């Protein structure tokens, strides 16, 4: 069952990355939707592990994604789907097993019909649309995107783990909002990376980051990080305003979103502290 979780984790990430590589709208939409379905499989399998009292973590292998044509990564996704189907035997829940099997069957069929296209996501051209940035600025933007794409993946996995292990409806709601928000940010940053030819899979996260013993402290530390991210976005927006209205508006948009995250995290920390006091 643990192997099934790892296979699903790798398959989900590879499919998500493939959606960023795709430029043709229909290919992108299909891969993006399939990655969403695979993410749901991942969370359902995780739930099964918890129900059965099996210890697990989010360790996985590195996922090579550097290809020149979309058909190559799609073929690898199909290979992983076959592997996942074989591992389904580890799943005791017949309804879940059948649901995943029929999903895999359809997705493989649909992937077989996807038109091929060249992939530019690894060209290393490091230019975003028509925006003209100097060398130093491009270097800094590159670092920013690598750091932040990893950070968003890390947040998705941390909040997902906390949500999976919580039975508090209030906290579950907050964690789900933060997961959804981080998905949006991850997509935005990875789309920029793909456009700049520097797409990379976020690295594996260490289990000490999500197997958190003090949730209140974790949330309060997280607020500090969100405030720092807000400052970064505000500076980015102000600096770019004269050069790119598009980027300025984007970083303002991300900045304003962080306000809500901070408020939710404050409420969650207070709620957690209160429920701990009440025993």
């Amino acid at each position, binding site marked *: 069952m643990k192997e099934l979780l790892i296979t699903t984790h790798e398959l989900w990430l590879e499919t998500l990355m493939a959606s960023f590589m795709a430029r043709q709208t229909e290919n992108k939409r299909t891969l993006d939707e399939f990655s969403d379905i695979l993410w749901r499989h991942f969370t359902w399998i995780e739930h099964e592990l918890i129900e059965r009292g099996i210890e697990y973590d989010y360790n996985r292998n590195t996922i090579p994604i550097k290809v020149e044509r979309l058909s190559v990564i799609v073929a690898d996704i199909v290979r992983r789907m076959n592997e996942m189907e074989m591992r389904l035997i580890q799943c005791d829940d017949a309804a879940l097993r059948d649901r995943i099997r029929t999903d895999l069957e359809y997705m493989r069929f649909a992937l077989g019909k996807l038109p091929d296209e060249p992939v530019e996501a690894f060209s290393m051209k490091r230019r975003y649309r028509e925006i003209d940035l100097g060398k130093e*600025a491009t270097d800094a933007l590159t670092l920013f995107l690598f750091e932040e794409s990893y950070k968003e993946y890390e947040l998705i996995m941390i909040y997902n783990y906390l949500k999976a292990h919580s039975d508090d409806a209030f906290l579950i709601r907050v964690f789900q909002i933060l997961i959804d928000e981080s998905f949006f940010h991850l997509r935005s940053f990875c789309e920029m990376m793909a456009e700049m030819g520097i797409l990379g899979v976020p690295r594996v996260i260490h289990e000490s980051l999500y197997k958190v013993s003090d949730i209140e402290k974790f949330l309060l530390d997280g607020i500090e990080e969100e405030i720092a991210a807000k400052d970064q976005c505000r500076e980015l927006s102000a600096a770019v305003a004269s050069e790119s209205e598009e980027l300025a508006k984007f970083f303002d948009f991300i900045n304003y979103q962080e306000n809500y995250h901070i408020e939710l995290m404050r409420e969650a920390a207070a709620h957690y502290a209160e429920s701990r006091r009440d025993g």
Partner: protein
Amino acid sequence: MEVDRELLEHMANPHNYGLLEDADGIGIGENPQNGEKVIVYLKIEEEEGKSPKIEQIRFQAIACMTTVVAGSIITHEAEGIDFETAEDLVAVTLGMLENVPPEEAACSEMVAVALKAAMDSCIERKEHPERPAVVYKIEQSCTPQPVPNPLETSKEQSS
């Protein structure tokens, strides 16, 4: 940090990143100021009368991208060498950091001391296999630097 093609490769596909199951030794390099850490896992090959050889090496970083790049470069260098040569690699790396600003040096120092800790862990575990990971703290001070503002830099250049 100036980004060239080689550095980009390390960022996108860091060498030896991840966990090594059944490692012979585990070492941690830790920054006591901010809790950042690097974990190095080693699998070694031993031959009578010779210095142990690093057969496999993996690392994980709870730290910034600069640390990941340093981990990728240093562990790539350490792959397949014996402990004596690896000790030299650690010493050379730490020596090179003397003239580097502390906040930049801390990232490489964390990797170098984690490698040293992992080698010491291998030696310790020969006698006491149950011993936990060896942890060394770094000396350089590293206050997390805000990510440089690319667009501000661009503005300065254009003005």
